[in-house]
C-alpha cells in the first residue's frame, strides 16, 4: 500500500502537558478515503490536525507526506505540500479576513500557485469550484464575508480547497458552528469531493452521527491517545471500548425510543491522582481493573476492522503494527457513480 500521508508515533507536548500521545495513522493513496477523528473536547483532535497540516511541529514522531518528513521539507516540497494538503476550519467566520471580499481567498491561491495563466482561466476555475459546492458565482463573488450566511461561508472555504485540487483535506470540525439544516448540505459536499474528485478527507468532529454518515473509518481519541479505531459501522454501531460506549450512549438522538442512559455518569473523577502511566480512561471507567492503572493497554483487535486499546480485550490479538489504519476497511468505492 502506498501511503499518501503517514502519521508516525506523533506526540505533542505543551509544557508538561501531553496533548497527543504516540498516534500512528497512515492514509492510503490507492483509494481516497474518509477518515473521522472523534473525541471529547481537549482530546487532541485539533492538535493532530494542525500537525498534519504542518502548522505546528511534533514533539516526537513525524508526519510524512509522499514519504517526506513535513518538518524537513525543502521550500519547493513545502509548496507542493501546502497546495496538496488543505484545511477546512471550524469557524466559518474567522477564516475570512473581514477586510477583503470573498474573492480574496479564491484569487490568492490561484495567483500564488499559478493555477491559471490568464485572468479568464482563473475566473472560470473559481466559478467552477463555487458551482461544485452549490454556490452561484454571481451571488457570491464581490461580497464581503459578513454578507454571507455561515453555511455559505463554509461552502466558500470548501470551494477554496476544491480549487486547489488537493490530495487531502483536513477538516477540523467544519460544521460544528453551522446550523443543523446546513450541516447536512456541507457534509454531503465533502463526501461528493471524496467520491468524485478522489480527495482523501480527514474529518475531525465530536459529532459521531455525522461521522457515521459520511466516513469509512473512525479514530476515537481520548486525552491524546487512541481509544478505539476502525470501520464506522463497527466502532459506532457496536463500540467496544468503554469510552466509545459512553460516547455513543450520550448521543442525543431525536428518537424517543432510544433514551439517554438513565444512569448518570459519575461527574467527579475519583482516583484521578492514581493515574500516572496506565490507561488514560481508567479514572472514569466503569469496568476499570487493577492492571489498567499500571500500564497503557496495547491495541487489541477484538474482531475484524477495529482495534480497541482496552484490557477488557486482553487475550484478543494485538494489532500487528502500531498503525491504526491497519484495521481500516477499504472505502466504499462501490457507491461511486
Amino acid at each position, binding site marked *: 500500500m502506498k501511503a499518501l500521508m503517514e502519521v508516525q508515533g506523533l506526540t505533542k507536548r505543551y509544557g508538561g502537558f501531553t496533548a497527543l500521545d504516540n498516534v500512528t495513522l497512515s492514509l492510503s493513496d490507492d483509494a481516497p478515503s474518509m477518515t473521522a477523528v472523534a473525541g471529547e473536547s481537549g482530546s487532541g483532535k485539533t492538535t493532530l490536525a494542525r500537525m498534519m497540516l504542518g502548522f505546528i511541529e511534533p514533539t516526537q514522531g513525524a508526519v510524512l507526506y509522499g514519504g517526506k518528513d513535513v518538518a524537513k521539507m525543502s521550500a519547493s516540497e513545502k509548496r507542493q505540500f501546502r497546495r496538496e494538503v488543505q484545511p477546512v476550519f471550524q469557524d466559518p467566520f474567522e477564516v475570512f479576513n473581514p477586510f477583503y471580499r470573498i474573492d480574496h*481567498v479564491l484569487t490568492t491561491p490561484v495567483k500564488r500557485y499559478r493555477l491559471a495563466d490568464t485572468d479568464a482561466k482563473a475566473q472560470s476555475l473559481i466559478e467552477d469550484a463555487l458551482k461544485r459546492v452549490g454556490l452561484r458565482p454571481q451571488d457570491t463573488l464581490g461580497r464581503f464575508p459578513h454578507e454571507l450566511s455561515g453555511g455559505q461561508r463554509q461552502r466558500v472555504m470548501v470551494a477554496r480547497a476544491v480549487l486547489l485540487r488537493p490530495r487531502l483535506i483536513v477538516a477540523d470540525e467544519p460544521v460544528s458552528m453551522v446550523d443543523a439544516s446546513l450541516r447536512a448540505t456541507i457534509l454531503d459536499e465533502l463526501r461528493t469531493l471524496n467520491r468524485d474528485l478522489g480527495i482523501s478527507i480527514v474529518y475531525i468532529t465530536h459529532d459521531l452521527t455525522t461521522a457515521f454518515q459520511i466516513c469509512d473509518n473512525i479514530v476515537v481519541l481520548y486525552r491524546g491517545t487512541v481509544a478505539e479505531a476502525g470501520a464506522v459501522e463497527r466502532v459506532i454501531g457496536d463500540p467496544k471500548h468503554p469510552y466509545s460506549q459512553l460516547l455513543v450512549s450520550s448521543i442525543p438522538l431525536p428518537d424517543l425510543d432510544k433514551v439517554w442512559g438513565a444512569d448518570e455518569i459519575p461527574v467527579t473523577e475519583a482516583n484521578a491522582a492514581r493515574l500516572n502511566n496506565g490507561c488514560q480512561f481508567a479514572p472514569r471507567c466503569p469496568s476499570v481493573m487493577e492492571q489498567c492503572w499500571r500500564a497503557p493497554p496495547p491495541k487489541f483487535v477484538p474482531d475484524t476492522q477495529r482495534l480497541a486499546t482496552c484490557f477488557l480485550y486482553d487475550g484478543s490479538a494485538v494489532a500487528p503494527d502500531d498503525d491504526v489504519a491497519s484495521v481500516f476497511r477499504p472505502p466504499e468505492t462501490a457507491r461511486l457513480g
Partner: protein
Amino acid sequence: MNRFFASLRRNYEQGRISAILVLGLTILIAVVLFGVVGSLFVDPINATVGAVRPRRPPGADYFLGTDSQGRDMWTLLIYATPNTLKMGLIAGFIGVGFGAVLGLIAGHFGGVADAIIRVISDALLTVPAIAVLVVIAGNIDRMSTLIMAMVVASLGWMFTTRTVRAQVLSVREKAYIEVARVNGEGPWEILFAEIMPNIMPYIVASFVGTVSGSILAVIGLEALGLGALEEMTLGNTIYWSQQSSAVLRGYWWWWGPPIVVIALIFIGLFLTSVGFDRFANPRLARR
C-alpha cells in the same frame, strides 16, 4: 477608491461614523483654515519683532492687541497655529509610522525581535522627553520646529508599538491567517496584506492620539523655553507671555487666544479620537 467609499458608507450606516467624529474633524479643519485662509489677509511683517507698538490691548488698530516684542497677536496667531499643527502632524506621522512598523514586526515575528523591541520600547517609555530634548538642543546650533517634531516623535512611538503589537497578537491567531498561509502567502505578505489592514483603525486612532500627545509635548517643551524660539508657534507665544508675566499684568490677550486655539485643536483631536475609538471598537458605537 470605490471600495473606500463603500466601506465609508457601510460604516456610516452601521453608526460607526458618528456625529462626534464629524464634529471633531470640522473643528480641526476650521483651525487649519484659520491658519491657511487667515494668512491671505494679514501681512507677515506684523508678526516680526518690533513691527508694531508693543503691549497694546485689543482695539481698532490691533484686533487682538500686541505682545511685548512688538508683534501683532492676530497675525502671530494666524502663523503660529499651522506651525504648531505641523509639528504635531510630523511627529504623529513619524511616531506612528515607526511605532506601527515595530509593533507589527514584534507581534508578527515574535521571538528575539519581539523581545528586543519590547525591552527598548518599555525602557524608552520611562525616559522623559525633556532629557532627550536637552541633549538634542545642546547638539544643534539652531532649534527648529522640524527638529522639535522629530524629538517628540522619537519618544512618541512606544504607545503605538504597544497597541499595534497587542492587536497583531490577537489578529495573528485568527484562522484567516492560516488560510493565507495555505493559500501560499509569505510572512511579509501576511503581515502587510492580511494583518495590517485589520488593525488600521487602531493605527489611525493611535495616530490621532500621538498627534495630540505630540502637540501637548511640543507646547510643554516650548513653554519651558526649550523650543525653536525664533519660530512662531503657539507654545512659544505662551512662553513669551510667561516670560513677561502677562498673567499677573492682566494682559489676557497674550495668553488667552493661544490657549483658546490650543484648546480648540485638542478638542478637535479629542473628538476625532473618540470618534475613531467607536470606529475601532464597534461595541462603543452602539451607545
